[in-house]
């Protein structure tokens, strides 16, 4: 327990006495350890503890938020008073009905046990990954690995009597390989992550991770500039799902929908994608990077069908989104830490598997671009315009993979592209990522099977 139940009660009762329609305390203590390994050396090891309490008051549809590193009752009361007084909100002399905080019962998303290991074991794993990556080719000139492990402990109280808590362990490795030939350099990377402890690293296939990063760097090193133009593309599974995440997922968050700043805000029940497309946002996948037992508003998470056979079925909704749009809450209120008010955010978001094989798609495409690994991108939710970089791509001629290309970007509008996904593969895979938005940077999973997009503008060299 990070604060006493009585303290939570008194602070919430005080907020309600100042006229708040709703008060919520989000209490957090997170321990973090990071290791940076480069040039075959442990460069830095850092550790620390983030701890604080966020207070959210809702008056009508006005949301007020403040936070503090202090867990003292008087400091929390003072914070509530300052928030309310900023707006000359007079005491409504509301009396809070007796609050009996009963710990919320919910199904815990299983997490890989957070096995306690010595730093030396973690360092050994990094050294092994470095050796395996360099061993792939003498052209690998550098390997840099960042290791992150954290345990987030959260506790939530609110004026509706909710009391919920959860411990969330996370672990991730980001490894970048640099390949060099004369003055030419190129990079490749791999970044597996899980909700769980060191057991994940023990079960991770380091040989495969090393090969993925090294191979990508070597491929890009010999790649030719990508030709520009509109062409069909096949986007490989796993992190390729970042396009759906950016180009559609963000448009389904009620944070955008409530402001009507999403092009999909009024499209529920309509055909917004090709009938081959079904998509899900699921907070309950075991051990996945974006999974939560409860969201950061204390609601148990769920599997939310976003699109079914092309039809928009649900939005991603938090408490404020529910208040403003009437859409049902989906256990999607998320935040980076106590420093952020929650907002509707994605969890593990993916396009569900279809029936096509990769070969079917290549043959159907004829000439085009095969995106074996996607990089990051961004979207303008208001217009749906997006862009994504291709980390590893190949030209395709007559359905056969040809030479590797570099410097390619895919751009388009989410609403258009969803209708142009004409084939969905049978090889669904998920990948860990970090998503930045209004409530901070949070762990999310993206995913998809391989997809064929009939045509899209590919940015490259002319």
């Amino acid at each position, binding site marked *: 327990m990070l604060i006493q139940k009585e303290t939570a009660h008194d602070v919430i009762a005080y907020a309600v006495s100042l006229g708040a329609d709703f008060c919520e305390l989000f209490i957090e203590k997170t321990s973090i350890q990071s290791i940076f390994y480069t040039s075959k050396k442990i460069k830095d090891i850092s550790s620390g503890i983030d701890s604080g309490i966020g207070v959210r008051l809702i008056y009508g549809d006005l949301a007020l938020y403040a936070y503090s590193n202090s867990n003292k009752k008087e400091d929390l009361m003072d914070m509530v008073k300052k928030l309310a007084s900023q707006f000359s909100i007079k005491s409504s002399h509301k009396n809070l009905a007796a609050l009996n905080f009963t710990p919320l019962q919910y199904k815990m998303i299983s997490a890989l046990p957070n096995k306690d290991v010595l730093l030396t074991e973690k360092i050994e794993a990094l050294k092994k990954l470095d050796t395996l990556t360099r061993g792939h080719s003498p052209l690998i000139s550098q390997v840099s690995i960042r290791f992150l492990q954290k345990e987030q402990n959260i506790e939530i109280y609110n004026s509706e009597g909710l009391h919920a808590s959860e411990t969330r362990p996370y672990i991730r490795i980001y490894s970048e390989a640099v390949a060099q030939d004369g003055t030419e350099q190129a990079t490749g990377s791999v970044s597996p992550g899980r909700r769980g402890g060191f057991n994940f690293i023990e079960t991770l296939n380091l040989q495969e991770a090393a090969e993925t990063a090294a191979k990508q760097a070597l491929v890009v090193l010999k790649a030719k500039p990508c030709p520009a133009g509109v062409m069909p593309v096949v986007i490989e599974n796993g992190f390729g799902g970042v396009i759906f995440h950016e180009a559609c997922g963000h448009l389904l968050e009620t944070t955008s929908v409530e402001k009507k700043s999403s092009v999909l805000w009024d499209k529920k029940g309509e055909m917004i994608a090709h009938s081959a497309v079904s998509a899900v946002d699921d907070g309950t996948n075991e051990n996945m990077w974006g999974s939560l037992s409860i969201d950061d508003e204390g609601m148990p998470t769920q599997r939310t069908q976003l699109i079914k056979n092309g039809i928009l079925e649900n939005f991603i909704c938090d408490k404020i989104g529910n208040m403003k749009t009437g859409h049902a809450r989906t256990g999607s209120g998320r935040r980076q830490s106590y420093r952020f008010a929650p907002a509707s955010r994605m969890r593990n978001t993916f396009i569900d598997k279809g029936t096509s094989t990769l070969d079917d798609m290549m043959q159907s495409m004829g000439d085009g671009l095969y995106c074996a690994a996607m990089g990051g991108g961004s979207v303008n939710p*208001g217009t749906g315009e997006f862009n994504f970089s291709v980390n590893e791509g190949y030209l395709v001629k007559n359905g056969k993979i040809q030479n590797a290309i570099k410097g390619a970007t895919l751009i388009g509008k989410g609403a258009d592209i969803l209708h142009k996904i004409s084939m969905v593969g049978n090889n669904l895979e998920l990948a860990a990522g970090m998503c930045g938005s209004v409530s901070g940077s949070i762990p999310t999973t993206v995913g998809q099977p391989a997809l064929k997009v009939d045509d899209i503008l590919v940015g490259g060299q002319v």
Partner: protein
Amino acid sequence: MKNLIQKTIDRAMNSGADACDVIISNGDSMNFSAQDAKLEKFKVAKTSVLGIRVIKNKKIGLSYSESFDEDAINFAVKSSLENADYSDVNEFESIQVKNASDFVKKSTDKDMSSTEEKIEFALKLESEIRKRDPRITAVPYNGLSVAESQSYYMNSLGTYTEEGESYLSGYTSALLKEGDITSMHYSSMQERSLAKMDLNKCIEETLEHAVNWMNAKPVATGKYDVVFDTEVLSEILGAFSSCFSAKEAIEKTNPWENKLNQTVADARFTMIDSPLYADAFFKQHVDSEGVLKKDLTLIDNGVLKSFFHNTATANYYKTTTTGHAARGAKSALGVSGSNWLIKPGTSSRDEVTDGTYLEVVDVMGIGPGSDSVSGEFSFGASGYLCKNGKRIQPVKGITIAGNFNKLLTGIKCMGRDLQHNHSRGMFAPLIKFSELSVAGK
């Protein structure tokens, strides 16, 4: 704060550290967000973080704490020393800055406006922009932020510095819709006081492009000369800033690692890092090791003259620090730049804007679309097709691709008048870059 830092250093030294430094970062902020003629969100933030770096047997250990009580500080000191035990020997990183006197610069020019005035400003920003065009269906981002930060640094040699800032940021946006056509743009402003905030200018900048792009279309795929808006130019240089990093050069991820004193840009191109540039909004007096900052010429008439150095990279290269150490309370020692000045050329505006070219005022995905190691870039862009200085067609839905090295050597023309970006951290003349690859229709 000074006492707390001193106490922490004493504790680390008494616990076995050979040397140590401590940073405390304090921040206070308020954010007012207005939507549909109402205040929608109000956020108050107050943060404090203490970060420790210890050196023990030539090994580095880092830790931080957001709590300043005795137990938390003791735990942070203990953790940093344990982390050092597991690190590899680092021959170059040390605590070596010993100043003769303390440096203290507190935040000045604090805004004195009331909360009511700030709320009124955020509301007015939204209501005014909505009045300007009936096609505005939403103002997705609109509000005002007030921020104050103070950074404290001390090392075990007794060097102490303190530097603070306070400022306001206003921002608005407009989403226009007519039939199936949508367009959106966002603009922001920074000032020291609410009274100096130019609401109209922010609205006009937002609407100028949002309205024009309702009629935008892609240009034909081909090679185009390009003039980047100063904001965009700043983003491009930021994406390739590792070219100036001595730390990245040591780690073999700086493509200009071996290019010191070699030509990397057009002979007319001179770029200076100017932490105290008179017109800059933020001025940086000291770096994260306590070194007083000064101007540094990075590229002189096309020749790479220096990298950003901290004392560790300077030791490696057997040179002196340039005062570009960068370290936050939660991060390791690195390097970073401050305000960037590209020296003006000799061409008039008419000369720069002669002929047909693309004026690029907004970009998407510069970060993920830029490979700082290979120099390749490809990102989405919006702007205008121009002829002899006149915008003849609004442009959207295109990509611009090239290579950073070729970009800087392929300068066609440099203007003689300086312009700056929104945050007044980048100052550059109009520059026309020749024949970049543009993918459109």
